[in-house]
């Protein structure tokens, strides 16, 4: 169920907040949602409190609420980014094996992740820049990528250096194979999957410009 009536309409590229709002507009009322660290976290600010969306944090909680007042932070109550959060009525706590069972078992409706690269078939690279000598760290990224019913990505479409992050084939170490279904960016929303990438919506650009920018042939959603 999408709610395009709430979606931002712009003739310019979206800000990060607008990308987050655009993601939020696609989340059906009553959904269970996991928001990755970084840009995905912003999505929470754009969910209608009356929509009954429940947030999962993979470190062991359903019913996560917003950040507390600074002096009310509880070191025992943190999100996956290890920053303080709060508990909403109807919350529940569980241990790590149960939390990842919930994720891996397909019970989370939507997982929103950041990415370094997404391929047109939905491969995801978001845990390692592949830099030699870097200290690696993966956390729950690989579990989140493959576990939810629907995994979507929020990212800028280009790197700071102008390189496309939506690519024919990921060159960075993979997080998961064929796991992403939609990518929300500053310039466009695109569906990815077995049939390749298809443009859902553009912001301040055109279908043709996007194809040139990415060096890809892009389909259109029907």
């Amino acid at each position, binding site marked *: 169920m999408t709610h395009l009536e709430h979606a931002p309409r712009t003739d310019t590229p979206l800000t990060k907040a607008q990308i987050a709002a655009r993601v939020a507009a696609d989340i059906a009322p009553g959904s269970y949602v996991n928001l990755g660290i970084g840009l995905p976290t912003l999505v929470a600010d754009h969910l209608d409190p009356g929509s009954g969306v429940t947030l999962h944090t993979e470190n062991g909680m*359903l019913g996560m609420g917003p950040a507390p007042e600074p002096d009310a932070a509880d070191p025992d109550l943190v999100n996956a980014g290890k920053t303080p959060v709060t508990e909403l009525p109807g919350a529940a706590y569980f241990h790590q094996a149960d939390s990842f069972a919930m994720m*891996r078992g397909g*019970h989370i409706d939507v997982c929103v992740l950041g990415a370094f690269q997404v391929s047109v078939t939905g491969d995801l690279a978001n845990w390692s820049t592949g830099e030699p000598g870097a200290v690696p760290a993966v956390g729950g990224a690989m579990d989140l990528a493959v576990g939810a019913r629907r995994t979507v990505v929020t990212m800028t479409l280009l790197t700071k250096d102008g390189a496309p992050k939506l690519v024919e084939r990921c060159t960075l170490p993979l997080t998961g194979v064929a796991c992403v279904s939609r990518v929300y960016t500053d310039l466009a929303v695109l569906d990815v999957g077995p049939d390749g990438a298809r443009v859902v919506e553009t912001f301040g650009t055109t279908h043709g410009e996007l194809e040139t920018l990415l060096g890809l042939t892009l389909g259109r959603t029907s």
Partner: protein
Amino acid sequence: MSATVLAPDALAALGDVADGATVMIGGFGPAGQPTELVEALLAQGATGLTVVSNNAGNGDDPLARLIRDGRVAKMVCSFPRQVDSWHFDAAYRSGAVELELVPQGNLAERIRAAGAGIGAFYTPTGYGTPLADGKETRRIDGVDHVLEHPIHADLALVRADRADRAGNLVYRKTARNFGPVMATAARRTVVQVREVVPAGALDPEAVVTPGIYVDAVVATGTHAGGEASA
């Protein structure tokens, strides 16, 4: 899963059940058996069912009547034989019902695996016995194991003690048994409880089944043995 629906009665909670569906039914003998929901399934009429349940009915309880009435094509269970499992015994002997006998711990773990997205697992239980005949085996660290696969269901019927409006559940004593794992393993989970309380009225530290696993709840006002709640 979408938000938990609070249903007015057991039949409404149950919703549609297709012929040929796989239905998990909680309980260990009478303890934790979702009596009113199985009554509703009897009334609803679906047939050709595969039922996953530790036992196969006692006396004329609703699960026994489901079997008696020819509605169950297959039972997946660990202990069908009871002193009063007349209806199952007759259906089994006549060939009317197929039986997949599963050691109780493998049954629980296979149901858990379905809920947890585990593709298959190696267990020592059953190795070298007739119940592992034809199954793949592997020696791991000097111990022989059998490869077991998840058991998924279309519907799980569970009895808990209390639910909150978010669908979180707590159980009562050993009536907890299969409820928490079955709730995770079905495409649709329907729960009967003694009472429904507001969201926030259950201690979040003590929730056994988080609401994400629960699609519909009905308050039957009864608990163990069917007595009305105080």
